[in-house]
């Protein structure tokens, strides 16, 4: 017996080790959660590897910052100028979209919708990967200590990245959306068809469960549908790159997507640590008119006799700037900034409050003493009935007049109006 054991010792050990691993694997497959021993092994492995990864990422980031922030500043001024122009354009665009969003909210409120909102996020740095072609996961440098929990959504400014899979003390595993075991509820932006976004073994992202007879165009955006209760509705997931009919008895289209987030070059991500669900009310965000924003950029208005008819001034403002489409009943009688005295309101956007149908002036931080002499017609509406908190528009501390639009000469005394 001993001689047999000695002779086949190697083989017996091999079989024993393989058997132990197969058994362990079977137990893990049967259970959906980690067993105590497998959890322990993961903790050991991750605790060993991630500190070094964090150090390397820190060194890499510091070196990169040093280069980008101190040595490589060529063209920054030109870029800055360009970006400022873009900001101006985007602000106007934002106002227009805000108007559309308000309209949508009113309709949703009528239908009694509840919507999830991202209430809190945590920024995390990607420090490593799973190191396997079959498992598309990344490690981030935030864990239990930072309030991270499994199944939290992970996003970037470009779109959805994935969800938190496993959480360790100071790091976490994130399952990317191109992993074959991931799944995200998706909706096509134009056609409003809903499906499931999945990864494939080859690392591609596909949209499943869209019937063969539906028309889906390449280039269409896919967003989160919110149906998975992990990702809030409306986040960009990807763009349709290829649509093919299902083969044979397959009833569904084969839709391939290009992920919105660059999954192979992830550096910083946002973890959605808190989602809030609330009923939609039409006054969630009070709109700000394009004319109001334009008025901040125009030269100051000279002194005029107060109490100019509001209707006329409103018409003037409408001519001065493209007014966003949509219902605008409340602003009909509201005084406009261009009609107001001196600079006290020229720099202050009029914020409409839908509930009251009135207008009130959000005084900027730099408003001067003259602001006390604002026309009385602006005050009462806000006083009669408390309005919901309006969305404040970031106003520049000292609005810069456009040099090429000399509508009126600047006031001689700086206190007479904004510069």
């Amino acid at each position, binding site marked *: 017996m001993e001689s047999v054991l000695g002779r086949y010792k190697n083989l017996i050990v091999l079989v024993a080790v393989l058997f132990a691993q197969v058994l362990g694997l079977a137990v893990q*497959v049967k259970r959906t959660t980690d067993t105590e021993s497998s959890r322990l092994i993961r903790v050991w492995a991750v605790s060993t590897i991630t500190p070094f990864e964090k150090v390397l990422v820190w060194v890499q980031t510091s070196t990169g910052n040093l280069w980008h922030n101190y040595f490589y500043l060529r063209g920054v001024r030109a870029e800055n100028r360009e970006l400022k122009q873009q900001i101006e354009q985007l602000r106007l665009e934002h106002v227009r979209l805000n108007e559309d969003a308000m309209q949508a909210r009113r309709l949703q409120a009528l239908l009694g919708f509840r919507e999830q909102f991202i209430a809190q996020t945590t920024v995390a740095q990607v420090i490593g990967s799973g190191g396997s072609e079959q498992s598309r996961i990344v490690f981030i440098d935030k864990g239990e200590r930072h309030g991270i929990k499994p199944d939290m959504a992970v996003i970037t400014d470009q779109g959805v990245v994935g969800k938190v899979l*496993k959480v360790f003390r100071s790091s976490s595993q994130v399952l990317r959306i191109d992993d074959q075991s991931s799944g995200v509820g998706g909706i096509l932006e134009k056609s409003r068809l809903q499906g499931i976004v999945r990864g494939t073994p080859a690392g591609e992202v596909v949209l499943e469960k869209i019937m063969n007879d539906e028309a889906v165009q390449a280039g269409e955006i896919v967003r989160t549908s919110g149906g998975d209760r992990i990702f809030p509705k409306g986040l960009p997931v990807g763009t349709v790159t290829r649509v093919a009919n299902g083969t044979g008895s397959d009833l569904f289209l084969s839709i391939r997507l290009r992920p919105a987030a660059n999954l192979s070059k992830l550096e910083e991500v946002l973890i959605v640590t808190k989602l809030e669900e609330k009923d939609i009310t039409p006054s969630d965000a009070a709109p700000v008119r394009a004319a109001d924003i334009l008025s901040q950029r125009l030269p100051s208005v000279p002194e005029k006799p107060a109490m100019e008819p509001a209707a006329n001034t409103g018409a003037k403002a409408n001519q001065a700037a493209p007014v966003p489409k949509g219902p605008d009943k409340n602003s009909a009688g509201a005084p406009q900034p261009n009609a107001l005295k001196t600079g006290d309101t020229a720099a202050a956007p009029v914020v409409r409050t839908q509930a009251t149908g009135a207008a009130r002036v959000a005084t900027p931080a730099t408003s001067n003493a003259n602001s006390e002499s604002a026309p009385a017609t602006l005050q009462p509406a806000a006083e009669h009935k408390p309005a919901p908190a309006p969305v404040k528009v970031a106003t520049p501390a000292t609005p810069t007049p456009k040099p090429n639009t000399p509508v009126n000469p600047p006031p001689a005394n700086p206190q007479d109006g904004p510069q």
Partner: protein
Amino acid sequence: MPITYTSGEQVEVYRFSIPFTVLVPATALFLQAWLPRQFPFLAMFDLPLLVTIFFSIARRNPISGLLTGAVIGVFQDALTGLQIGIYGIAKTVVGYGASSLGVKLDVENAGARVLVTLVFYVVHQIVYFVVARAMVALSLQWSWPHELGAALMNAVVGVFLFLALDRFKQRT
């Protein structure tokens, strides 16, 4: 062909210091997790596998080889999001096979090492594929061109890696 048959007395058995035995697999695991973040295509290289083959061949002890493979594989599994044991089983088989081969053949030169690494890479992938599909129900796709290409790349990298690690061998 540079592979030569040797008797048990002829082969040289090597051993390694404990820090080296711990640090090299740990570094391989670290690089395996770190490098694909920088360059995603590097995920095709399996540094823990190369280290397993190196230790198994140098020690020429099947039990030591299979245990080395099992430990490295299990820790590699721990870094993935999948169940623990898939890489473990594949590397156990490779560790056992490489050390058994090391007992019979002299695989100290570059040509032999390329061939051995190439073959064991394919063996590793086949075992991984079978276990992942049969036990974990992963829907993997097998592609011979991809696997052979990856095997060749790993074999080339393996030659240079083995040359570097040879310096730390200690004769018994």
